[in-house]
């Protein structure tokens, strides 16, 4: 009998692990993170089924992943208050916690909740902020991410990026040798790896997903026809449209900040060059014209210039060109390989792939000072993408020859790995901010 119970328990564990698909491990911690306590949120539903997620735990995990906070484990808490009158600041001062978050989840309507939370300054013994947020079972994790965003912004002065998503490509191989079949998927998940959804499935390569600035559409490259072509798909409905079908390469789509244009790579004239496509009019304008490989365009946040990879100097380097065209200016000079550039949201940094001693790693370059910082330590790191608040960079790496996702704080201090259960994961792209409502 106990044996049966054991088996059932094990099954449950396995099923839970499967449900979350992407798991996150922090592989390099940080000193100087702010000590905070996020008390597990109380459930006010009496006998009713409690919510499927502990809001407090989701908030604490978000704050920890940012590297800016060090949440106190719940089992080290002397008390677990959920209402203001239950808080005794002396308990928290004794634990050297600087900030305290408490909250409760109250049933509301048939499938709804009201989530209340309060943020306190422990040493002053004062409430800093407090919100009451209506939500549903389906939106509970999203509400928790919004709470983490509010706390992050209140305490750091910078907007949080927890209530965002990532898009990425997975590939799963089956069979072997000549019979090997590959299933490639374009997926999206919450920024913490939960709730993955497949939005495109193909047996031919899918590449280069790119979020529209409003986060509602994704452009990508698909090889489903005889030649690669660029598609734009609505995330919510799955409705999609083929936007290019030129001879040769159709690749590397990049949205302009106003969402009206796609910069992309076409080789219809003989070799890869950057073009700008007006999405509404479907008109195409050449931006670069060079015998070299010009590819991987990315817009500056002000929409005035485009950076791209070119091997016009003999090896791949990053160049910048005005959106109106003209001469391209080389930006990277350290090392023999710098590729796939993109801007930080504030336009101050570039991130790209660089080669050091034969290893491909993620680097940033300060555009004012030219200072280069290498942020990753893998052999085959690629596809860096900034979080919309600029605090982190997500990228693809290899662990024991398996493609996994990793993230690093932009200052290089915190590293984490997002692990997928099966198949290879690659080409992560962080979504822009998603629309949110807040009720104080």
């Amino acid at each position, binding site marked *: 009998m106990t044996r049966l119970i054991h088996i059932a328990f094990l099954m449950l564990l396995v099923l839970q692990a499967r449900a979350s698909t992407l798991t996150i491990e922090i592989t390099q911690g940080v000193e100087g993170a702010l000590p905070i306590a996020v008390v597990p949120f109380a459930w006010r539903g009496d006998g009713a089924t409690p919510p499927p997620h502990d809001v407090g735990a989701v908030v604490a995990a978000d704050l920890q992943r940012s590297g800016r906070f060090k949440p106190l484990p719940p089992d080290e808490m002397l008390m677990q208050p959920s209402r203001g009158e239950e808080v005794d600041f002396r308990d928290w001062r004794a634990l050297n916690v600087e900030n305290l978050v408490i909250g409760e989840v109250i049933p509301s309507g048939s499938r709804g909740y009201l989530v209340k939370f309060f943020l306190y300054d422990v040493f002053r013994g004062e409430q800093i902020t407090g919100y009451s947020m209506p939500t549903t079972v389906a939106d509970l994790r999203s509400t928790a991410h919004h709470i983490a965003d509010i706390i992050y912004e209140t305490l750091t002065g910078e907007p949080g990026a927890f209530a965002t998503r990532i898009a990425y490509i997975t590939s799963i191989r089956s069979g072997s040798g000549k019979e090997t079949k590959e299933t490639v998927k374009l997926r999206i998940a919450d920024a913490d790896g939960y709730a993955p959804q497949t939005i495109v499935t*193909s047996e031919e390569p899918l590449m280069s997903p790119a979020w529209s600035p409003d986060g509602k559409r994704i452009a990508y490259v698909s090889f489903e026809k005889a030649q690669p072509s660029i598609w734009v798909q609505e995330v919510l409905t799955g409705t999609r449209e083929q936007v290019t079908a030129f001879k040769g390469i159709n690749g590397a789509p990049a949205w302009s900040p106003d969402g009206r244009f796609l910069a992309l790579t076409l080789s219809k004239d003989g*070799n890869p060059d950057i073009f700008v496509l007006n999405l509404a009019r479907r008109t195409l304008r050449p931006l670069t014209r060079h015998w070299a490989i010009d590819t991987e365009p990315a817009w500056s946040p002000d929409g005035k210039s485009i950076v791209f990879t070119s091997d016009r100097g003999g090896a791949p380097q990053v160049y910048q060109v005005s959106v109106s065209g003209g001469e391209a200016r080389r930006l990277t000079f350290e090392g023999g390989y710098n590729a796939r550039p993109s801007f930080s949201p504030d336009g101050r940094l570039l991130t790209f792939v660089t*080669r050091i001693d034969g290893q491909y790693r993620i680097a940033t370059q300060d555009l004012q000072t030219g200072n280069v910082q290498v942020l990753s330590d893998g052999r085959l790191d690629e596809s860096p993408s900034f979080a919309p608040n600029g605090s982190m960079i997500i990228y693809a790496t290899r662990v024991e020859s398996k493609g996994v996702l990793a993230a690093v704080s932009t200052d290089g201090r915190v590293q984490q790995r997002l692990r997928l259960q099966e198949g290879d994961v690659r080409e992560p792209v962080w979504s822009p901010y998603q629309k949110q409502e807040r009720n104080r």
Partner: protein
Amino acid sequence: MKAKRLAWLALAAAVVLVAGCSSTGTKDGEGAAVEDRGASAGGGVTTSGAGAGATWTGSALEDPNSLLYTKVIYFDFDQDTIRGEYIDVLRAHATYLVTNPGSGLTIEGHADERGSREYNIGLGERRANAVKRFLEAEGVSPSQVGTLSYGEERPAVYGNDELSWAENRRAVLVYY
């Protein structure tokens, strides 16, 4: 005690396997549903058989003793120069194409996995074009030769070492 623990570990592993199988089943279902969604929206994902190889063309292409039997040529790192060892092979293919004007092929260009993906698409195209130019210089009609770059998306060998990379830096001649 230790043995008992091991037994539990083994059982746990077995359960993981079982769970793995069943969840593969549901994954398939999920994939199919999503494909339907794509299909209603954009006409479906069609597969091209470009990688399937030449099966119905003349026997000369399938004769293991013929130079034409070689349909994959390899390149050096970050290079699109055709190595001397492949000149005779490509000349044989050129002769075949010239004497069989009804035949044609797609040259697939590939790169190893190192570096960025879209740049590797460019590199793969360069390799395919190098082969195409060689064939055309030998008198083959441009209309007989198409190119398609897969970059690093379609490796021949799944490995992360120099040997695997060398096998993946290639152009493949696919007759249709």
